[in-house]
């Protein structure tokens, strides 16, 4: 299948005769990555589903426990957010909740919905709207930053308290691993390969005009 792709950084149009799964396509002008074919959608579906299960599992599990003068306290994603809200730090709670919980969750739900719809042959303008949403919110996902934050907090607190890493952190690492694989495997542009040129123009005109043409 012949594909014409526009480099998102310098605008150069590149023609690819046949897309290969194991090949990265680089812009000859600015050397940016132009196109990398994602994995088959059934793989994407199952890894995203695994990630979603881990996501719900980790929410209420203790991330870190600390002990000061024999009194033990632990924090989970939910209790941490709850504490911020209770203490009136609404904006901090909003930023944390959005970038660490809501965005990764929405990305997974969108991936599953899009992949499922496309496999069933449902390629409508709504599916392309979901694709746009996926691409626009992905930059606000900061779950991996939060994981590094957990380790920094442990190092900071170890001088004043007894610290133990909870199961929640381990599940969080597993979640992040599967989530990262899901993001790497799912290339939203691959949806274009499931529709003909007319269908693409009808359902995802903006997507089509942006530079990816299949034929």
């Amino acid at each position: 299948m012949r594909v014409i792709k526009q480099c998102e950084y310098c605008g150069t149009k590149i023609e690819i005769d046949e897309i290969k799964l194991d090949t990265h396509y680089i812009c000859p002008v600015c050397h940016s990555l132009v196109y990398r074919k994602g994995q088959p959608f059934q793989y994407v579906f199952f890894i995203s589903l695994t990630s979603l299960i881990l996501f719900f599992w980790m929410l209420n599990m203790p991330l870190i426990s600390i002990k000061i003068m024999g009194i033990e306290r632990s924090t989970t994603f939910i209790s941490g957010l709850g504490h911020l809200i209770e203490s009136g730090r609404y904006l901090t709670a909003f930023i944390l909740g959005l970038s660490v919980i809501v965005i990764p969750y929405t990305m997974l739900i969108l991936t599953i919905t899009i992949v499922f719809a496309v496999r069933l042959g449902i390629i409508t303008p709504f599916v392309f709207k979901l694709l746009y949403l996926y691409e626009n919110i992905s930059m606000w996902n900061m779950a991996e930053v939060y994981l590094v934050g957990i380790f920094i907090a442990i190092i900071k607190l170890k001088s004043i308290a007894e610290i133990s890493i909870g199961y929640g952190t381990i599940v969080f690492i597993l979640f992040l691993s599967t989530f990262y694989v899901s993001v790497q495997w799912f290339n939203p542009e691959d949806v274009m390969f499931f529709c003909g040129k007319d269908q693409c123009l009808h359902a995802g005109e903006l997507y089509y005009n942006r530079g990816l043409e299949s034929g």
Partner: protein
Amino acid sequence: MDRSVKFSVFKTWAYSLAAVFFMLPAYMLPMMTTGSLGKVESNTIFSGIVYFFIHGDYFVALVIFVASILIPIVKIVGIVFLLLVYHLDVEELKLKSIYLYQILKFIGKWSMLDVFVVALMSSLVQYGFIAFAKPGPAVIPFALVVICTILATKSFDTKMYWSKR
């Protein structure tokens, strides 16, 4: 010039200036207030780094310095550089600017690290008089610095470099 290009340049300048504006309270006000047995201490980002450095926690000091001071400053200077390359139409720097743009896009969110650490610590260290930690007034301006720099990067389009032709 295309109106959308003009608007994109305007938005990038606006977000960059907003980030610079929020930097002042973010670095001047306390990021976290801690207390232990009645002794209360407030630390700004910079004094926090100095504290960890003096106490031998070089790794934590380095990570916070990189995430909270170096990255936001590099991002703002980098975005202004990208904008100047556009305005001055420096042909030989256009392709190099694309690499810089990709780096800025990648490092953007890592500045949020300190905000998350403060949020985590404040939910953990809640022992009343014995020990407590709570977010300081710098948390919000600092988060806004990070958000503004991410939005500035997002609104900049490197394809604009070739739109003047």
